[in-house]
């Protein structure tokens, strides 16, 4: 069920958030691939980045990386 009708203004207003979230997830994934080790297993971070929107990448960058 779609609670809020998606008129074009809404789409225009919310589009930036979606784009930024996607960029964040991609950057986090690139970093995850390049980094040698993380706190906790890598596959766990993969799931977190992919399935928790916005907070997944933030969590990874703040507490997942072993080097700062």
């Amino acid at each position: 069920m779609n609670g809020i009708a998606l008129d074009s203004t809404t789409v225009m207003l919310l589009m930036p958030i979606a784009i930024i979230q996607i960029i964040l997830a991609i950057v986090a994934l690139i970093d995850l691939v390049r980094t040698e080790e993380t706190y906790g297993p890598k596959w766990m971070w993969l799931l977190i980045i992919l399935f928790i929107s916005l907070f997944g990448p933030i969590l990874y960058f703040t507490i997942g990386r072993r080097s700062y």
Partner: protein
Amino acid sequence: MKQWITLFKKEQLEMLRNFKWVWLPLVFIILGMTDPLSSYYMPRIIDAVGGMPEGTVIEMPTPQAAEVLLATVSQLNLLGVLIIVLASMGVIAAERKSGLAAMVLVKPIPIINYVTAKWLNVSLIGCVSLFVGYITGWYYTSVLFGTVSFELFLQSYVIFAIWYTFVLTLTIFFSAIFKVAGVAGFITLTIVISLSILTNIMGDYMIWSPAQLGDSVASLIMVGQLGDGFWLSLSVTVLLVVAMLFGATKILENKELE
């Protein structure tokens, strides 16, 4: 000076490599957008998910532009500070733990250069991220609710940025004391939060407190003038920043960097 610039560049490079210059501004942009957007859509969100009985009419006054901008400020003050502290708590601690600091400081570098190069870098990324987030909030507020003058925005930003610099200096200070980044971050956040709470409940005694800067941002937006203790709290903040930088240097000098 040349040496200092080299250290500064090294920090810059590191922050580019670990994507801090990408993700911090992006996260702040989202933080800046949330409040104007959620205030704007609140009536429709309540309509859609509120489970109100048929025919309920809720009159919601449209919030003033200044109120929405103030909500953005408190969002940046809460989540923004949390994120920026978590992102920079390891700036010295992790480097000491991994032995990198020892490798850098084996060379005849004055520790004050090492500390200030880090400090300027962290402050720079903090203030730029804050600016990006705050201006996004201001822009969305202006588009959706009505104008808040750009001049007012800039003035409040400058004060806000000084508060951020203070928080980040605190982070660096504790990062120099503790070897574990998490401990440094935790203590910084505890101090920042208790300072804000104490300033709120005992405003008369805490007129010097750096947290008054946050109140000045609020009163600048709402009434257009600075809070009472602004100049006092500004001087105390600047003094504390300088003192903490020297303190961090002294502490690092007296520690063996194994």
